[in-house]
């Protein structure tokens, strides 16, 4: 053949023999020589048309966008994503601060509650001690124990002039 194809040119001898053997098995007979018919004018014209079509397609083929163009196209999207991420980060920081503040307030409230509870317990204990003392004292003196707590009050010996308040005016 007048045109070259490396795969055909360097075909091993055993492959050629195998092909001949298979042709015999199929009953095709020996392969004829490499005579090729001269291309007709119609085929030549068709081949030239196809070559021109391939060149036209190569010229008009839309090139793939370059990396720079792709990056430029993706820039607004990246900026939006970055802004969204920044806003989200700020929101998270704010939420973390508020959570920490709430936790501190909760701790303070629990401390106050504990202090209050301990004071109440102390007062209750002191009250019980006083009741016990009063009961002991009443038993010793043979009197019936008062069912309620009596707190002695020191009355003033002398009423001062400024110590009372007039609630009614004197009749004229």
């Amino acid at each position: 053949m007048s045109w070259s194809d490396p795969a055909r040119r360097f075909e091993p001898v055993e492959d050629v023999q195998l092909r001949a053997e298979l042709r015999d098995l199929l009953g095709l007979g020996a392969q004829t020589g490499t005579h090729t018919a001269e291309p007709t004018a119609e085929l030549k014209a068709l081949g030239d048309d196809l070559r021109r079509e391939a060149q036209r397609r190569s010229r008009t083929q839309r090139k793939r966008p370059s990396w720079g163009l792709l990056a430029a196209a993706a820039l607004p999207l990246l900026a939006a994503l970055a802004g969204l991420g920044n806003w989200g980060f700020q929101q998270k920081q704010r939420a973390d601060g508020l959570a920490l503040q709430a936790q501190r307030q909760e701790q303070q409230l629990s401390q106050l509650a504990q202090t209050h509870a301990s004071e109440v317990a102390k007062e209750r204990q002191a009250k019980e001690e006083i009741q016990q003392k009063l009961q002991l004292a009443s038993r010793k003196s043979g009197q019936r124990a008062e069912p309620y707590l009596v707190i002695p009050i020191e009355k003033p010996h002398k009423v001062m002039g400024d110590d009372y308040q007039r609630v009614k005016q004197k009749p004229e």
Partner: protein
Amino acid sequence: MTESPQETPFGTQEAFQAAFAELYPRLVSYGRRYGATFPEDIAQEAFVILMQREQRVEHPTAFLYGTVRTLSLTERRPMKNQNLSLEVVAEPGLAGGADDQVLNQEVRERMRLLSPTFREALWLFVVEGLSIREIADILGIPEATVKTRIHRAKAQLKDQLNPSGGVHVLV
């Protein structure tokens, strides 16, 4: 690597004309055997795709056969049977293909009895005259697989010619 305007995948313009004159009718026949409705268009499209490629194709003949096979199978994908047909190919406007002239009824019957996978490799190797390497490129399989298929086709052909297996004759 881009080709200069004067250079073709087959070398010079004269070499391209000769290759086109030899391969185009065969590719049309090959596409028709795969059931293509417009095999001429497919063969022409294969040539255009080959010449349009920016990188040089190592085996242009195998590329053309593979492209025609793929385009033909894609065109008739909804159909179930995707095997190579052995019926006589009638090409309107063109004389019968060289393979049809040499393939008589007996040869077609022998090939029909082969399994479709082996038949395809055998057809490309014997009738189309392609090399093992080219067939591997067309079918997208390793060269060793192509050789295996061809040798199994050969064994099946021998079984057809000698159905007794050659052992029982001695008994």
